[in-house]
């Protein structure tokens, strides 16, 4: 292996057979290249989906009421379920230790929003202070709604960063400005930011204000919670599922809904959704691996093919070398040495260029559900080694056969 004469002989041969060397190298390099890119995008999809779930707190649980579809205890189907403050208060008191953050939400409708002479068309949500953490919103200016606002029915509003850019772009800070909701002035006390701009188009006001000023009574539209962090993913899922089921049972009882009427009160857990997506990405990754391994197999077949042709093409040369005193093992060694050298160099080149591409382009990929495609270097290097090994095994047999045929037959080969 470290015989300098052998290396010189091999470099000579490779240099003088450029096209053959190039084609062998290309098939290996492209195999590795495709595999790494595929694996990179598999990882990218996993990253992307994980990212999608980061925008809301991953342990959040939401209640969406709907319409009953089943008759139960004398109640007709088709009844609309309306959540109330009592539901929220009762559940919060009973399960305080299981809950990290909590807030009801009410949608305020049929209200004209004006800033000066400008009419604004943004959704208005009445929420409590914890809602900031449930939505994973970051404050970039001022503060979010707090308990005092809630208890004092304060006429304050928190706006999204996009609204600030669109409406208050001319001001250094929108804090202290007033927006009129049906003629009632609300003071801006904060600006929040979310991971996506389209979620920054909501105006948040205190829940109590929304109910009292805009005639909401004690009605709420959603209940939202986050659960305290669990030790690991599976525990978190189990915890979320248990919480969700208990919450639904309670609400079904409180609103006289049949236990199997799932549409009437929908409880949605981000954790459970996440688990579904994670198993999906697992499948996608598996698929990419499958395609990648097929690519490698194609690469191995390609290398074996080229090895066969190389040996065939060089049969006469092998005959000449043997007539001049080459031992069979030196012939096998020469052919394999060449093959290993070319496969290794081109394999690592393919690896290098695919990694380079992922490094350069990866961070700029802006497609939904794909983020920062990257690949584990160890895995990539291992595949190159596998390819080299397979190429060697594939090349050994034709080389061995060629080295052991009668010299005279090798010399007769045209």
């Amino acid at each position: 292996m470290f015989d300098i004469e052998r290396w010189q002989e091999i470099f000579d041969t490779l240099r003088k057979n450029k096209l053959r060397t190039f084609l062998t190298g290309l098939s290996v390099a492209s195999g590795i290249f495709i595999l790494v890119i595929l694996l990179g995008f598999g990882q990218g999809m996993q990253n992307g989906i994980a990212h999608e779930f980061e925008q809301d707190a991953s342990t959040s649980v939401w209640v969406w009421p709907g319409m009953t579809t089943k008759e139960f205890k004398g109640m007709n189907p088709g009844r609309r379920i309306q959540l109330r403050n009592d539901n929220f208060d009762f559940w919060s008191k009973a399960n305080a230790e299981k809950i990290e953050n909590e807030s009801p939400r009410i949608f305020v409708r049929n209200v004209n929003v004006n800033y000066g002479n400008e009419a604004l068309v943004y959704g208005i949500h009445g929420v409590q202070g914890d809602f900031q953490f449930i939505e994973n919103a970051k404050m970039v200016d001022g503060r979010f709604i707090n308990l005092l606002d809630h208890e004092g029915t304060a006429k304050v509003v928190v706006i999204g960063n996009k609204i600030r850019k669109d409406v208050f772009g001319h001001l250094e800070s929108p804090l202290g400005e007033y927006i009129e909701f049906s003629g009632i002035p609300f003071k801006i006390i904060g600006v929040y930011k979310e991971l996506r701009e389209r979620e920054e188009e909501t105006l948040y006001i205190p829940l109590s204000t929304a109910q009292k000023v805009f005639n909401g009574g004690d009605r709420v539209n959603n209940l939202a919670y986050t659960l305290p962090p669990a030790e690991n993913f599976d525990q978190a899922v189990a915890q979320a599922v248990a919480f969700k089921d208990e919450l639904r049972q309670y609400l079904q009882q409180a609103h006289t809904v049949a236990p199997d009427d799932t549409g009437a009160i929908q409880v949605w857990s981000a954790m459970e959704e996440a688990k579904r997506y994670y198993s999906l990405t697992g499948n996608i990754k598996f698929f990419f691996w499958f395609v990648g391994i097929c690519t490698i197999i194609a690469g191995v077949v390609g290398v074996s093919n080229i090895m066969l042709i190389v040996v065939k093409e060089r049969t006469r040369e092998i005959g000449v070398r043997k007539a001049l005193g080459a031992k069979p093992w030196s012939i096998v060694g020469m052919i394999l040495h060449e093959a290993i050298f070319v496969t290794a160099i081109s394999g690592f080149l393919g690896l290098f260029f695919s990694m380079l591409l992922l490094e350069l382009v990866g961070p700029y990929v802006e497609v939904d559900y794909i983020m920062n495609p990257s690949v584990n270097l160890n895995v990539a290097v291992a595949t190159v080694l596998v390819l080299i090994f397979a190429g060697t095994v594939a090349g050994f047999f034709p080389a061995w056969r060629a080295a052991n045929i009668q010299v005279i037959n090798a010399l007769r080969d045209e």
Partner: protein
Amino acid sequence: MIEIKDLHKSYKMGSNSLHVLKGINFTAEEGELVAIMGSSGSGKSTLLNILGMLDEADSGEYNLDGVPIKNLSETKAAKYRNKFLGFVFQSFNLINYKSAMENVALPLYYQKVGRKEREEKAIKYLEQVGLKEWAHHLPNELSGGQKQRVAIARAMAAEPKVLLADEPTGALDSKTSYEVMDLIQNINDQGNTILVVTHEEDIAHMCKRIIHLRDGVIVEDKKIKQVRASSYVQ
């Protein structure tokens, strides 16, 4: 130097067996220049290939410089070929992607001679065959006569005990044939043992001894007065 007794060889041709050599007995001393003649199919090339360990005999004895050649492993055969024998073929058998010098140096590579020494020796032998200026040319840039001279230089480079030439002039015109034979005679003059397979009378008469083969047996074995090829050259 060469001693063979009752050598037999047959080839399988489908279901038929073709008996090519039917008991050859033959000795060659050191320094001889022997022409093996015969029409095509007489077995002369087969004999040479067996002498060169490129092919194996079915039965019979073969001693080369006192060493019995029998049931050799490929590795051992390779060693003996490298140590004892030099080959010249009708179709030259140069490696087409190696320059004249590299071709000549190749047997030395298998003798584990260092690169520098290999190249020096190769140049020396190319100079002997008058092709020093062509050392860095590829075979396809050389004429047939030049190619054969490179092949002879290559055969000589390993300093073999016996030089085996299979129709060395078969692919050459008369003038170049004589040049090549002149070269072979010169090498023989230096004391090397040479066996030449040919079917050309004039080439055969440039050797010192002629063996006639017909249908796998030696029908005639005579010493002759050598015709010097140099008288035809120029």
